[in-house]
């Protein structure tokens, strides 16, 4: 019976040999060790992806208290349900995974197999993700199969059985309401495995790029995260670069003709959860980097996107600097592009504010700060001056903030006083000529137009035809207290900022755009008594400066807004008086 004996021995060898032919991935043990042992790994790629949840380590229920990012996702999910009628996974911790780490099957055919002894199967899952109970079940299946087949060669059937089970996801968690729980320690490994497996599969595929119309290998293609359309990388780079360079950032989205018109289906479900509201289908900067696009280009994309978002926000205010006019962020600007779902319920604030509106229609002082996106200029969005802090009021003060007395006082000041062009201290002439010397800073100026006068030759101003004050030295000789009518219409207050009277420029090297009023001038009286200046000219009196805000500060704020140089620099002044004016004379 030598044949029989050989045949019996052959039976195991033959079985393993034919298995190796069917499954090239079957690895026989090294020669020298047990000749009837082998290992094979069985891929787990269920037809329907498995729903897997990774409960948090501390055992807290997955739907815990809502943290902010959590609630955003919930909100969007909610939106999607409404828009698409497709229910996304209700729990952010549930992942639909279609590629799982393989099962390793190690088999050993003992003496007497198959007729007398069952085969020995060791089964384990890579990363041990499969529950032990399930593994046990699968191991036992091997034994019962052997019995069912009448104790015959069973390995092929068993491997087939395992493969089928794997395709069905081992009958775990495939119904909508079933979720397989896996230790959170494995979360990264499993997701990584899934991603790599998908990527590998993707790279083996071939796609026809809709732009160059060529068939391209997956290795040079990119699948758009949002919709799953595939294009080749060079075409995407070409297109998106052009869009971003031309500033057409609205076109940085999928290029497929019908994309975005129908609701997203299936494909994205087991991939990355959409992070955006349904309306915005432009690509995330991170995806552009993945394609990849140059970092500089993506930077520009981010910048333009942000700008566009600000500009589409009706509440955005713009930089008052004329050379800038960039959009400015304020405390009310949307903090994050991810939260674009709000906005409609809020009452829209106007972009500009009427300074004279009743206070309740203006934002509270603490909310008036705006910072220009482009030049970083910080300004008040109500008065558009550089930021004055929340404890100062806007200038000039709104009539609603003034009492009748204050208002009358302010009006009187506008009509009957002239501010010093250097320090803004207001002066009222009681009598005499129009050559004034500031009581505070000794600046010489003209009472009629506020121009600087040369200390050495103040009267040249009144002898120059072009100055506008030609031959007007003695106008209002008896004072400017309203009783004698007005020869000049008051100071420059109330006029727009840029009343640079050009006619003055010859005599007046530093035209004075004095717009600010020392508004908190209360009370007006008492006036300072006239100071004798020396015969024959009586010295024009000066009044005390307004209390409250320092007018110099006010002008500084104005200048900061227009980004002007400080023309009042003392060096400049002495230069002017020493050289220029002398030349003029």
């Amino acid at each position, binding site marked *: 019976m030598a044949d029989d004996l050989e045949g019996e021995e052959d039976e195991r060898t033959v079985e393993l040999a034919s298995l190796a032919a069917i499954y090239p991935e079957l690895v026989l043990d090294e020669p020298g060790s047990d000749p009837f042992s082998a290992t094979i790994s069985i891929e787990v790629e269920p037809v329907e992806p498995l729903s897997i949840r990774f409960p948090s380590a501390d055992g807290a229920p997955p739907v815990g208290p809502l943290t902010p990012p959590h609630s955003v996702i919930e909100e969007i999910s909610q939106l999607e349900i409404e828009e698409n009628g497709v229910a996304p996974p209700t729990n952010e911790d549930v992942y639909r995974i279609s590629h799982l780490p393989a099962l390793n099957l190690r088999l050993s055919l003992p003496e007497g197999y198959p007729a007398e002894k069952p085969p020995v199967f060791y089964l384990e899952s890579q990363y041990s993700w499969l529950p032990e109970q399930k593994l046990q079940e699968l191991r036992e299946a091997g034994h019962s199969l052997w019995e069912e087949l009448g104790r015959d060669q069973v390995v092929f059937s068993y491997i087939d059985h395992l493969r089928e089970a794997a395709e069905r996801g081992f009958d775990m968690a495939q119904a909508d309401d079933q979720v397989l729980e896996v230790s959170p320690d494995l979360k990264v490994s499993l997701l990584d495995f899934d991603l790599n497996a998908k990527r590998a599969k993707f790279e083996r595929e071939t796609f026809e790029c*809709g*732009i*160059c*119309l*060529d068939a391209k290998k997956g290795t040079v293609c990119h699948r758009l995260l949002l919709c799953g359309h595939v*294009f080749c990388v060079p*075409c995407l780079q*070409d*297109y998106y670069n*052009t*869009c971003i360079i031309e500033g057409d950032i*609205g*076109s940085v989205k999928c*290029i*497929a*003709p019908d*994309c975005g018109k129908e609701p997203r289906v299936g494909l994205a479900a087991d991939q990355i959860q959409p992070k955006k509201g349904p309306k915005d289908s432009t690509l995330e900067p991170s995806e552009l980097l993945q394609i990849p696009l140059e970092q500089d280009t993506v930077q520009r994309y981010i910048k333009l996107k942000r700008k566009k978002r600000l500009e589409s926000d009706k509440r955005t205010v713009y930089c008052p600097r004329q050379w800038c006019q960039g959009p400015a962020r304020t405390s009310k600007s949307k903090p994050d592009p991810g939260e674009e779902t709000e906005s409609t319920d809020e009452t829209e604030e106007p972009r500009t504010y009427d300074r004279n509106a009743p206070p309740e229609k203006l934002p509270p002082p603490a909310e008036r700060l705006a910072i220009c996106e482009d030049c970083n200029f910080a300004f008040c969005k109500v008065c558009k001056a550089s930021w004055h802090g929340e404890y100062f009021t806007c200038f000039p003060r709104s009539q609603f903030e003034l009492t009748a007395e204050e208002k009358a006082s302010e009006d009187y000041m506008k009509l009957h006083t002239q501010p010093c062009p250097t320090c803004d201290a207001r002066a009222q002439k009681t009598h005499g000529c129009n050559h004034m010397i500031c009581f505070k800073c000794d600046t010489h100026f003209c009472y009629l137009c506020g121009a600087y006068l040369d200390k050495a030759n103040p009267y040249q101003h009144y002898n120059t035809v072009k100055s506008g004050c030609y031959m007007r030295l003695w106008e209002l000789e008896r004072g400017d207290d309203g009783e004698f009518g007005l020869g000049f219409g008051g100071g420059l207050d109330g006029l727009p900022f840029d009343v640079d009277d050009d006619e003055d420029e010859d005599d007046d090297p530093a035209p004075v755009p004095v717009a600010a009023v020392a508004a908190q001038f209360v009370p007006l009286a008492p006036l300072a008594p006239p100071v004798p200046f020396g015969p024959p000219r009586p010295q024009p009196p000066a009044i005390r400066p307004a209390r409250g805000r320092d007018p110099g500060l006010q002008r500084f704020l104005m200048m900061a807004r227009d980004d002007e140089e400080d023309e009042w620099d003392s060096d400049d002044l002495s230069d002017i008086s020493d050289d220029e004016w002398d030349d003029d004379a």
Partner: protein
Amino acid sequence: MATAQKRITKEYADIQKKPLDGMRISLPSEADIHQWQILIDGPKGSPYEGGVFNLHLSLPMEYPFKPPTLSFKTKIYHPNVTNDDKGSMCLGMLRADEWKPSSKIDAVLSFAQGLLSEPQPDDAVEGGIAREYKENKKEFVKNAKAWTKQYAKK
């Protein structure tokens, strides 16, 4: 713009291999693949039936990132085609903001052909013709037929 050259060549070859019904396409100048000449037969059942319309398709250097422009060289009485000597049309997929780079020329041409069968008066460039089309279809058909006879004779 090697991309443009390559893609247009490919599309032209495809169209020659698989011609579109009722259309004959050629290049006026072999040296310039960006300019195409298209002869479209007036679709059956439309007032343009029996006519042949000469269209010009111009593909920009940035194609396919920028849309092609399509114009009628043959005068046509149609709400979506301007009545001047340019015969230009601008709607739907040809608009710069709606153009998708993966749209192909055969789709553009089929779209134009479809427009002959079914004008889109709500998106018209010739308001008068559009109004007539909507309110007095009989008159429109009469005019369109007359123009076809006069200008688009085979």
